[in-house]
């Protein structure tokens, strides 16, 4: 079987060559066939989501998603992939929960909707009662071997929890504080990040996590540090509009504050990525996305004021400085009018009690002839 070191090497190699899944699958399939690795039972619960992460996962090019399902993982419950429906499908989830406690991996896709005890998000029907997303995730999550949140919504709330967050949505970690949740963030999460994390769990257990609970092997470095346009930044050469080939920092690129390996892994079978098509990174893997990252063409988020008005941070800064300038100018004018400045300067700058008086001493006179009209 692959050692962990070899696995990590494949993660990087796969990112550079764009065939991570292709590289990892043969040794893994061999290990599964030899009985060295048990196929991981996986259940996926979708809560407040657009199902974008499932679609992203389907985009694994080689091997196909069906190869992964057949050879590597025991994908037991997933709304998108289920061959059955209704109680029959839900029965599989219940069976996994009851018969395989602390063996299965729970994948959660979508944000946790908390408003009115989660009744805006029903995900099951049990004994004549609707089951809410938070209830099911808590129940299944407490008995799971690992809990993996995929996508921005499940990890940190994502777009569903955007201002003013009417559904009081949040990430999985907040409703499962007893468990350590592995966050695979992104809007959507890259298929390699999802499969890579699952494989690491299957082969070596929990990967090393960074500050916000994301696997370091995918989220260890900022986009900015690995960006192919970094040289433009270092030289101070910036694009002034979307579509230009220089560094996109000035038009709001969030690469400097976003942790992911997009620059080397890229998207759609390594075909392209946002900066590659001359649009700024929008920071979709970071906590606080999208509120803290929007407007996408500006560095700082807008500041919300009561009444729903939002003000751009830069405009706010300029407004404060403008106000200060107006206040100082007004004070100068009033002080001059009232004589305060003159008084203060005289009081604090006169060096002596008796100022020497100057008397004009005229030493000599000059006389000039008046011009007169000659008659």
């Amino acid at each position, binding site marked *: 079987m692959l050692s962990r070191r070899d696995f990590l090497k494949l993660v990087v190699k796969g990112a550079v060559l764009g065939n991570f899944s292709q590289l990892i699958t043969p040794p893994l399939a061999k290990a599964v066939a030899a009985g060295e690795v048990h196929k991981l039972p996986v259940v996926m619960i979708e809560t407040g989501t657009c199902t974008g992460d499932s679609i992203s996962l389907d985009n694994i090019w080689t091997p196909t998603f069906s190869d992964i399902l057949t050879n590597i993982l025991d994908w037991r419950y997933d709304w998108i992939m289920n061959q059955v429906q209704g109680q029959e499908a839900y029965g599989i989830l219940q069976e996994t929960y009851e018969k395989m406690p602390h063996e299965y991996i729970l994948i959660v896709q979508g944000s946790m909707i908390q408003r009115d005890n989660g009744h805006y998000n029903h995900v099951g029907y049990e004994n004549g009662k609707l089951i809410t997303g938070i209830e099911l995730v808590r129940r299944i999550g407490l008995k799971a071997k690992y809990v993996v949140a995929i996508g921005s919504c499940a990890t940190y709330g994502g777009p569903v929890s955007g201002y003013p967050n009417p559904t009081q949505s949040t990430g999985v970690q907040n409703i499962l504080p007893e468990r350590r949740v592995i966050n695979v963030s992104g809007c959507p999460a890259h298929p390699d990040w999802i499969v890579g994390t699952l494989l690491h769990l299957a082969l070596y257990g929990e990967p090393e996590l960074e500050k916000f609970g994301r696997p370091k092997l995918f989220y260890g470095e900022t986009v900015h540090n690995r960006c192919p346009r970094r040289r433009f930044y270092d*030289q101070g050469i910036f694009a002034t509009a979307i579509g230009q080939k220089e560094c996109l920092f000035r038009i709001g690129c969030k690469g400097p504050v976003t942790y992911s390996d997009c620059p080397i892994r890229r998207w759609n079978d390594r075909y392209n990525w946002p900066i590659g098509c001359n649009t700024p990174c929008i920071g979709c893997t970071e906590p606080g996305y999208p509120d803290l990252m929007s407007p996408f063409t500006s560095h700082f988020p807008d500041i919300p004021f009561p009444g729903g008005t939002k003000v751009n941070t830069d405009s706010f800064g300029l407004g404060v400085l403008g106000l200060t300038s107006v206040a100082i100018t007004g004070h100068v004018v009033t002080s001059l009018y009232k004589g305060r400045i003159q008084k203060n300067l005289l009081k604090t700058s006169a060096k002596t009690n008796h100022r020497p008086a100057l008397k004009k001493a005229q030493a000599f006179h000059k006389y000039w002839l008046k011009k007169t009209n000659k008659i």
Partner: protein
Amino acid sequence: MKHSVKLRKPLLKQLKADNLKGRIIQSQPIWVRIFHWGFAISLVVIISTGLQLHKPAHFLALNFSKVLVAHIVFSWFALGFLVLRFTDALIRKDDSLIPKIRDLKHFPKLMAYYFFLRSSPPPARKYNSGQLLIYFSWFLVFLLASFLGLASYWQGEHLIWVWHLVGGFQMIRWIKFIISIYFLATIPVHIYLSLTEDISRLQAMVTGYERKPPMKNESKNFPRIK
């Protein structure tokens, strides 16, 4: 016709001293002056490079690595000057920069003075309540900005709790920007008031000496230079 009379230096000094307005006292020790100007220069570099890093100017094609290095180096300088001032205050047992309740009680009167509702400012210690509030807040927000700067410099390798507390890189960046706006809004007020309220205090920040009004019951022949 110009007549020049040569007087002996001690006599000239005595004559000048007799004619001087008020007393001249040492107001700002050397370490305070070093801190003030060192911190001021560092802060100018930090804020200007920070703004350049935040939003690169059209007309400047600067090497950004060097701008970042300048930003970080001058931040360390500023912290060094701050430590210097703090140590000096500890050695001299100087609490003139710490606002106290009795100082703050004068704040409304001071505001009344600045809004031309009073003709003179209320009595104060070395610094008035407005100065105390601004200077003390500068220390606090500068330390906060430096701390956040350190957290972002380490990129989440250390001080992870700060990232959790604040909510991520973007928030750290946002708070630092707001702090720089605070500095940019208050520094001009400081400069304006120091130029127009008591110019001898500004002089004290260069020479160390300040002119004060004469003490009551002060004899004419009492030596005034201390």
